[in-house]
């Protein structure tokens, strides 16, 4: 008896696992063949490792101010030179990368969570709930996001937010302007899913709202969400750098790639010390390219219909 049920359980498992993972496995196999996307992924991983572990091996990680070696050009001792306060630019660049990458990813996660929950709820319940959520989204999409971000940035300084907490608020600011577009996208996807046969089956089976929403609808937009979230990390990193460059985002002494480029606002640094502001710009550019290429590769395998 036990052998029979054991056998049954076995066949169930072997039958279930390939079906459950086949989409993901197929996608992964095809993704691996896309050399450009894999190069992008490799660069992202490299950037993470270097930013998060690199400073541990740097002799200048304590950010000690040393006026004796201020504004030195790149040399063997300081690969990317030193800044106005005699700090090693390479070490600061990596420490800045930690913040920029963290802010980019965190604000993406927050806006994807808000956007997909609100979009899903709007599409599922329709009626007044849908109206309220989508009208708010429309409203926020009508107002240009850069002025909103500038105002919020100015408010942060007014409310005397401690410098070390500013990065968390910047994440929230970026999600505040990021969620409406996502909500709209998720809503339109959910509306098409809602009309599919398997959803009618779910209704006939008498499943409750939560099971329909979380077990049947949301899993079907996960591939799309993965693609969109990957691509929006790049956008968030760019927005953070713009804000910090204009002194309205994360502020020194916390370094980010954006506020390091702020050195270019000083005419002497801009003209004579390009090692202060070119490396962070190149870091932003290469990281965002890598993310966009990888995201596009993901889109090819997970969501080919959305290619445009």
């Amino acid at each position, binding site marked *: 008896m036990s052998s029979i049920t054991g056998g049954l359980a076995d066949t169930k498992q072997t039958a279930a696992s390939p079906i459950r993972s086949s989409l993901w496995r197929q996608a992964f196999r095809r993704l691996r063949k896309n050399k450009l996307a894999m190069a992008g992924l490799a660069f992202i991983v490299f950037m993470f490792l270097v930013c998060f572990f690199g400073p541990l091996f740097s002799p200048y990680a304590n950010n000690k101010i040393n006026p004796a070696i201020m504004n030195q050009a790149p040399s063997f001792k300081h690969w990317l030179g030193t800044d106005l306060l005699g700090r090693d630019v390479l070490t600061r660049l990596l420490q800045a990368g930690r913040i920029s990458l963290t802010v980019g990813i965190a604000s993406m996660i927050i806006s994807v969570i808000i956007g997909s929950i609100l979009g899903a709820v709007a599409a599922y319940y329709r009626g007044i709930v849908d109206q309220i959520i989508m009208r708010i989204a429309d409203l926020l999409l009508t107002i240009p996001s850069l002025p909103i971000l500038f105002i919020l940035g100015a408010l942060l300084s007014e409310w005397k937010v401690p410098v070390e907490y500013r990065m968390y608020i910047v994440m929230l600011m970026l999600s505040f302007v990021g969620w409406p577009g996502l909500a709209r996208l998720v809503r339109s996807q959910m509306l098409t899913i809602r009309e599919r046969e398997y959803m009618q089956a779910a209704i006939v089976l008498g499943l409750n709202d939560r099971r329909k929403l979380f077990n049947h609808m949301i899993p079907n937009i996960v591939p799309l969400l993965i693609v969109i979230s990957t691509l929006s990390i790049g956008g968030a990193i760019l927005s953070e750098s713009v804000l910090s460059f204009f002194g309205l985002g994360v502020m020194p002494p916390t370094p980010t790639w954006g506020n390091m480029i702020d050195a270019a606002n000083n005419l002497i640094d801009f003209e004579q010390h390009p090692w202060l502001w070119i490396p962070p710009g190149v870091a932003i*550019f290469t990281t965002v390219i890598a993310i966009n290429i990888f995201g596009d590769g993901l889109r090819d395998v997970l969501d080919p219909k959305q290619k445009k």
Partner: protein
Amino acid sequence: MSTYLMRRLMYMILILLGASLLIFLLYAMMPGDFVTNNFKLPAERKAELREIYGLNKPVLERYMNWMNNAFHGNFGFSLSQQKPVLTLFNDYIWNSFLLAITSTFFTWLLAVVIGVVAAYKQYSWFDTMVMIFIFAAMSIPSFFIGLFLIKIMAVDLKWLPPGGMLVTGSNATGMEYIKEVVHHMFLPVVVMTLLGVGSLTRYFRSNMLDVIRQDFIRTARAKGMKERVVLYRHALRNAMLPAITLIGFELPGLFGGSLIIEKIFNWPGIGQLYMQSFTVRDYPLLMGFTMFIAILTVIGTLISDILYHVADPRVKL
């Protein structure tokens, strides 16, 4: 169609009312105002000025005032420049428009040509190069590429001016004037074109890919038409058509200037005006600008939807 348009217009007005309230509240929350930020003034004079400008009134009353004037076509008076906001917009907007229309022209030209050729030669080395170029163009931090080009072209090589629209103190006229302006707008136009060309090239490439696979293209080839005719008459036209819906979305960019590019290149456009007013908290100007962009966005979306119907009559409005 007309009932749709009526409903649509009503909704536009409601959204703009909501936007005006939100914009007003956001700016009202902002720290400091034009008078308190001026350190040179004594306290009594500050109180007096705030009274004159109505800055000491309750927020709601100020909002009502602002809206009331706006409905009468009066967007207020710039405090820092002492001119009506709309007059200032008119002074600066055309400089922004000059940059925007030039770069939009080059963006579309490049995007159509590159996108179509890349689609036609899909998977060739040219196509791969184009794809990499598209990703690069979509990933550029705008302010950084601006600074970088100024550093190389203006500071190091001295080929082009670092910013502005004219040489300081210039009184050139006629052809000389045009030459000077073109010289100054070269770099900002290059940067703006670069920033826009990536996604648009990709759009045309994928449109063209869709069209090339259609049956009527095969029919055209089967009839023995020249490849050139098939490509330009039959394929390109159909690939271009959906793009007219994008024209509406270009609207805010054409007249709204670019905050970042104009600031970096010190271009006397409306975006630069906004950035200057931001530091001195010239609220009428700031609110007027933000509202102006919101209006352009709403109108642009409407135009896009209508053009969508024009391009494909199967789409019902």
